[in-house]
């Protein structure tokens, strides 16, 4: 079959879900193409030129409304095209298959399911496909759960050509994403990993890792084919297995020689781990701080991480020259503006390089969303969740006027941490009604911080001093081709 993925655009780093499923479909003999646009008219024109057998979407909650509108428009114009949805939203909200514009969904990881689903859609014999639901003659054929692949090395590498062949920007962008493991064993109430672990209890390990040899081989292959100066690991939690991390970092230092970024959890970071990461070439990490209020962080979010643990983790990482990007949420159930402001203070104390804040969104089937519905903090209408988590607060106000102040705090959060001098003016600043200006300011500071502290960090001679001294010009020259040494496209 000929499958076209339609995507709204994925920013600087191409969509991993699409790339992995595309690779699996190609391996099964299907043709795969990509349309990237924010305009449904462009999508319709592209489909009209050469209609595919299947139009596929990778969908997160919030964006599902946009993709549903696209699917409806496509169905109106090309009713014979099969519409297929995968990704987090249909995984946690499979009822979406009942929408007349959707023909099939994939639940959970799609590499094994998608090819089997296409076979079933082609055969039209009503066969059950675990991990999928699809329509046949007006009825829904419902498969059971399909356990995720336990041996990740058996999966094909992500289909980067899908993006890189059509986008010079994606191909040349010097930060390339990789996935060395999947899953997280922790029980944070707001996170989909807890829900996934409950779904697959007894059928899957919470964390599945690739072999370090496979990870290194993929990085070397990507570096051989495209410009790359920074490896960006997308893993939810890169440091769950200490032994695996040690072996991978050793290989990264020996066989790759590029700086990398990864995500860690504060309770897993100590001097030894920080040194292991730095020796492997780590120049930056992402780490969840999430909330400065101890009760909210531990009783509501169930992070089970003390303030001291967070501060100690940052100290260990800074001691070896690793920059820290913290992830924070404001607008939590029961959170007042003052409680949210305490998260700013914790980040200032931790001296993180960039404090990224989002507005909490209660995603379907997460424990915290369910609890917020029960307590009346959340209206329960998932259709009102915004397309991104930088915009609107969905929680009931604990104090009148707090919603606007909390939303403004999200915009100013990173700046208040980067410039503690303005912290004492924060209460006055969040009271100003200037949403458009604050949103623009956030976007600029967000971008500036990513480049300054993370994307371009390999340039800093202070970085990587534990690596035995940087090669001239930084880590980048050891792997990238000498044809084009300009840092950014």
């Amino acid at each position, binding site marked *: 079959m000929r499958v076209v993925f339609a995507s709204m655009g994925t920013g600087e780093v191409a969509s991993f879900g699409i790339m992995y499923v595309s690779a699996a479909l190609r391996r099964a003999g299907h043709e795969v193409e990509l349309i990237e646009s924010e305009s449904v008219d462009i999508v319709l024109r592209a489909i009209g030129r050469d209609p595919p057998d299947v139009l596929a979407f990778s969908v997160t909650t919030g964006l599902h409304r946009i993709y549903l509108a696209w699917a409806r428009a496509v169905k109106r114009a090309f009713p014979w095209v099969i519409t297929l949805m995968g990704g987090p939203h249909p995984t946690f909200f499979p009822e979406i298959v009942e929408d007349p514009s959707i023909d099939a969904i994939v639940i959970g990881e799609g590499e094994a399911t998608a090819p089997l689903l296409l076979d079933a859609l082609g055969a039209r014999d009503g066969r059950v496909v675990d991990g999928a639901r699809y329509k046949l003659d007006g009825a829904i054929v419902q498969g059971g759960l399909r356990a995720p692949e336990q041996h990740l090395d058996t999966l094909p590498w992500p289909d980067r050509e899908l993006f890189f062949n059509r986008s010079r920007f994606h191909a040349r962008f010097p930060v390339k994403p990789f996935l060395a493991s999947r899953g997280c064993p922790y029980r944070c109430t707001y996170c989909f990993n807890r829900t996934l672990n409950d779904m697959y209890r007894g059928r899957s390990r919470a964390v599945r890792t690739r072999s370090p040899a496979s990870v290194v081989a993929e990085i070397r292959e990507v570096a051989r084919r495209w410009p790359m100066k920074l490896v960006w690991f997308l893993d939810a939690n890169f440091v769950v297995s200490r032994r695996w991390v040690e072996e991978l970092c050793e290989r990264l230092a020996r066989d790759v020689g590029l700086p990398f970024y990864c995500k860690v959890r504060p309770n897993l970071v100590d001097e030894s781990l920080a040194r292991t990461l730095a020796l492997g070439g780590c120049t930056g990490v992402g780490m969840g701080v999430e909330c400065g209020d101890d009760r909210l962080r531990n009783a509501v979010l169930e992070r089970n991480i003390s303030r001291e643990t967070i501060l100690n983790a940052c100290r260990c990482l800074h001691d070896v020259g690793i920059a820290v990007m913290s992830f924070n949420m404001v607008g939590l159930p029961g959170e007042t503006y003052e409680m949210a402001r305490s998260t700013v203070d914790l980040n200032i104390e931790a001296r993180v390089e960039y404090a990224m804040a989002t507005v909490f969104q209660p995603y379907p089937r997460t424990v915290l969303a369910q609890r917020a519905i029960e307590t009346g903090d959340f209206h329960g209408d998932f259709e009102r969740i915004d*397309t*991104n*988590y930088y915009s609107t607060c969905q929680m009931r106000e604990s104090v009148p006027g707090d919603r606007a102040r909390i939303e403004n705090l999200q915009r100013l959060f990173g700046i208040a941490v980067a410039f503690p001098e303005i912290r004492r003016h924060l209460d006055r600043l969040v009271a100003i009604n200037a949403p458009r*200006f604050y949103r623009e300011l956030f*976007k600029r500071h967000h971008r500036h911080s990513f480049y300054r502290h993370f994307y371009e960090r390999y340039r800093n001679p202070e970085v990587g001093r534990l690596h035995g001294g940087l090669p001239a010009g930084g880590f980048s020259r050891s792997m990238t081709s000498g044809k084009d040494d300009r840092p950014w496209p």
Partner: protein
Amino acid sequence: MAVVRTAARWSALVAMIAGAAISAGIAAVVQACGGKAEPKGPPTESGVDGSADADSGPDGPVISLDGAGPDIAPTNDVSLDTVPAE
């Protein structure tokens, strides 16, 4: 050296504020004239699949490239209301 670093740091903030004010002003004018002021894009994590996908995750954090910074050439037209996630 510390003075230079401090000056550079505050200069960057002033540039961001000025840029944000100009962009917000332009968007307001465009909207007043009946134009589309703020297209919504997808969340991208740098999460890097941002969707928060990732990487909240900003996985990623990933940001799109409108409103390029002072030393980065804008190279695509993906809007960023939508930073990725990790």
